[in-house]
């Protein structure tokens, strides 16, 4: 027996970063908004308080804040000829759940993408010729430009209070910032984070090689800040429990600190937690959504009618919601036809470890999630690829995020996995090692995609999402090239041993890499290669909007959150326009 709820103007699936920003804007504009969140309500006080939050086993190893995969997993295979099997424990990527979404457990690394990233296909064709690209790749332009998004990046960074040093203000290069960045309209709202010793060593070494080190942009606050919503954020204390953890200090920019207190006061907004949305309901024409159906924690089914449906969940779950609802044509890798699930991409993660003697004391446990020092000299299109045989790049940085010892006890290659030799190596190297992140782009290719699994189900009886993914050869070449540059920086730091570990295939779900899953509901100008138009409106069902990293046609060098935030405010403007005059914002 389904109970029908009072109709709302807008229903939002997923009250994380995207959902809470959109809800706040539309509720403030006078629309009735219902936010459906599958997880629990949770707040800095009392849920995120110390010392209990400083628990590596519970949060880092056992992944207490993550999507409950006993109820809702993802199946995986490297290639279509294999049978996909459930990811029975999360390791490679960690989707969150609960109010505030995955952003609650992020590291706060807040980068913009560059101008070329948004027009990548056109740019590569123009710069390197039409035959340069590996034919297995499926890169494309976004349909939106950096110039269009810049005000929205700015607004999002000022909402979060992101700290950093501008490298390019309205076209003028600024000392101390990233000279490769695309123009900013103004300086960051807060100053850069203090620099960890590893960052200082990196800065000196990278500078000596002629590169351009700059402080990592951070949405863990370097100083007290009051955002445009009137909410106050505090200074980060470098506790070393950031990614995979919630912040006890109100120092990490997450929905609980930057917007929820305002949103939850607005009577136009209703938050419902514990609501597992089953599908977006369509009318008989299949071109109009009538609302959503969800199941509450007691197993009761509800229908929430609404004029507008926004799916703002984690990238993978946005894709699954459209597939479960029949919004957009599913992608078929055999023919290349169809769009939902197309262009799934990830991030190509490599590392460099620099081992020092015992007189060099690193103190890895003094850490914030985003207080590194990096270079963009080998990122994106910042270097000439014409003789390299690949596109894309990586930033290289000393990004010391923690010294939590279950996961972090670096040892040199050749160290036994256990026994006396292992123990001595751990004791000798724990406090005397610097790790670089070599954080790289991920190109879409025809055989990498998302669809519904034919066999495995979630706790509500619906098919799990199936992921088919292997690293493109292009990206592994890129990882080899840039990791070697990182090794040179490690040597210039004077380390006694420097070990580069470029990303290698086959891709495995057994090892953490990153939670930057992108694509599957790609944005674009062409309905035959995108799910949503440039305003993130579904081509086939104009009263459905899809917002998240699932909109990326391929993934750029950097962490996706800032770009998701910019797209969110970009979509907010479009949504306000749509609410006044419903209809297709772009005619196909």
């Amino acid at each position: 027996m389904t109970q029908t709820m009072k109709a709302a103007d807008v229903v939002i699936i997923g009250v994380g970063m995207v959902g809470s920003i959109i809800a706040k804007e539309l509720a403030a504009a006078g629309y009735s908004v219902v936010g459906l969140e599958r997880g629990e309500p949770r707040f800095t006080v009392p849920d995120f308080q110390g010392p209990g939050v400083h628990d590596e086993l519970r949060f880092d190893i056992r992944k207490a804040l993550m999507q409950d995969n006993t109820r809702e997993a993802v199946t995986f295979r490297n290639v279509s000829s294999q049978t996909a099997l459930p990811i029975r424990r999360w390791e490679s990527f960690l989707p969150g759940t609960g109010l505030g979404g995955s952003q609650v457990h992020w590291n706060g690394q807040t980068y913009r993408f560059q101008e070329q990233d948004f027009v990548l296909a056109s740019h590569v064709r123009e710069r390197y010729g039409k035959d340069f690209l590996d034919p297995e790749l499926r890169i494309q332009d976004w349909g939106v430009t950096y110039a269009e998004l810049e005000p929205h990046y700015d607004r999002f960074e000022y909402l979060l209070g992101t700290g950093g040093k501008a490298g390019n203000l309205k076209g003028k290069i600024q000392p101390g910032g990233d000279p490769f960045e695309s123009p900013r309209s103004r300086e960051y709202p807060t100053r850069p984070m203090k620099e960890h010793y590893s960052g200082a060593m990196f800065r000196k070494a990278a500078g000596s090689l002629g590169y351009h080190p700059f402080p990592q942009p951070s949405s863990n606050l370097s100083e007290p800040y009051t955002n445009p919503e009137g909410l106050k954020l505090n200074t980060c204390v470098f506790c070393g429990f950031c990614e995979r953890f919630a912040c006890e200090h109100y120092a990490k920019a997450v929905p609980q600190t930057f917007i929820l207190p305002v949103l939850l006061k607005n009577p136009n907004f209703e938050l419902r937690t514990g609501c597992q949305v089953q599908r977006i309901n369509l009318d008989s024409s299949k071109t109009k959504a009538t609302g959503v159906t969800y199941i509450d924690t007691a197993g009761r089914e509800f229908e929430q009618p609404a004029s507008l449906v926004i799916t703002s969940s984690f990238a993978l779950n946005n894709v699954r919601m459209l597939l479960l609802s029949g919004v957009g044509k599913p992608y078929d890798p055999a023919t290349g036809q169809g769009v939902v699930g197309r262009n799934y991409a990830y991030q190509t993660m490599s590392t460099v470890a620099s081992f020092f003697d015992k007189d060099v004391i690193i103190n890895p446990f003094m850490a914030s999630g985003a207080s590194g020092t990096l270079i963009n000299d080998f990122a994106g299109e910042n270097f000439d690829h014409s003789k390299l045989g690949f596109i894309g790049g990586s930033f290289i940085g000393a990004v010391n995020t923690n010294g939590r010892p279950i996961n972090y006890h670096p040892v040199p290659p050749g160290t036994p996995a256990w026994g006396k030799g292992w123990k001595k190596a751990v004791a000798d190297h724990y406090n005397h090692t610097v790790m670089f992140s070599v954080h790289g782009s991920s190109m879409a290719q025809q055989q990498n995609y998302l669809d519904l699994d034919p066999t495995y189900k979630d706790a509500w009886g619906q098919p799990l999402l199936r992921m088919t993914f292997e690293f493109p050869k292009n990206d592994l070449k890129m990882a080899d090239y840039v990791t070697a540059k990182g090794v040179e920086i490690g040597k210039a730091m004077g380390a006694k041993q420097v070990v580069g570990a470029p990303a290698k295939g086959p891709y495995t779900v057994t090892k953490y890499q990153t939670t930057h899953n992108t694509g599957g509901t790609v944005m674009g100008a062409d309905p035959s290669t995108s799910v949503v138009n440039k305003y993130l409106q579904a081509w086939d069902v104009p009263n459905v909007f899809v917002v998240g990293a699932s909109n990326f046609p391929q993934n750029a060098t950097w962490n996706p959150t800032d770009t998701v935030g910019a797209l969110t405010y970009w979509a907010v403007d479009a949504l306000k326009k749509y609410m006044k005059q419903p209809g297709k914002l772009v005619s196909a």
Partner: protein
Amino acid sequence: MSDITRRNFVKVLGTAAFLPGAATPALALAATESVTPATTNDVPVYRFFNAEEVAFMEAACERLIPADEYGPSATQAWVTNYFDKQLGGAWGAGERLYRSGPWQQGTPTQGYQLPFTPAELFRAAIRAINAEFTAQGKRFATLDGDAQDAYLKTLQAGGKELGDVPSGVFFELLLKMTMEGYFADPIYGGNKDMLAWKMIGFPGAYANYYEAIDAHGVAFVREPMSIGSDGHGHTHVDPNIPASL
């Protein structure tokens, strides 16, 4: 607790065989010197493992992290107590493990694909190991260290079945959980007296370095702090994960 007493305590523990019954003199000494123990028990009280399983686990973990001059061995750090409480609790019962079939073995990139919960997996594997030694009239726990290492390496290499559990899968989980018990907060029953943290210089749940981060290259010297530390620096295990019943 004075530093001297602490050192003696650790030193004595370090030379004592830590099998049940063997450690009594060291602990009696510690008690007569009015050391305030971090936990109220002198030896782990096992509630999941049976005696045969304890014998294997203590001996095996001791080879994975042996005693030496750097820091505690696995048993000195009560790693087996950690195993016991984890396997006897929600984690052992399959917490956060997607457990719907059908079951089939995939590629290594697809990860764990067996129906066993961690508790079932340990029970089945140790039963098979102990049966294998009993059939030869031996016990794993009484082999010399080299022979124990050699046997553990055969498990690690894989290709052996331990009561339907592939030995490589068992060994991998044994090693992973040994690291967890060694380095996790003492509230979980291992990392006794934060000795593993002291070995590497990790300050634990202390977690506030706003000023200290500016002192580049300077050693940060202070006693670590557990989530369960009280105002006197005593560490209490989580009452929900008792070291004793």
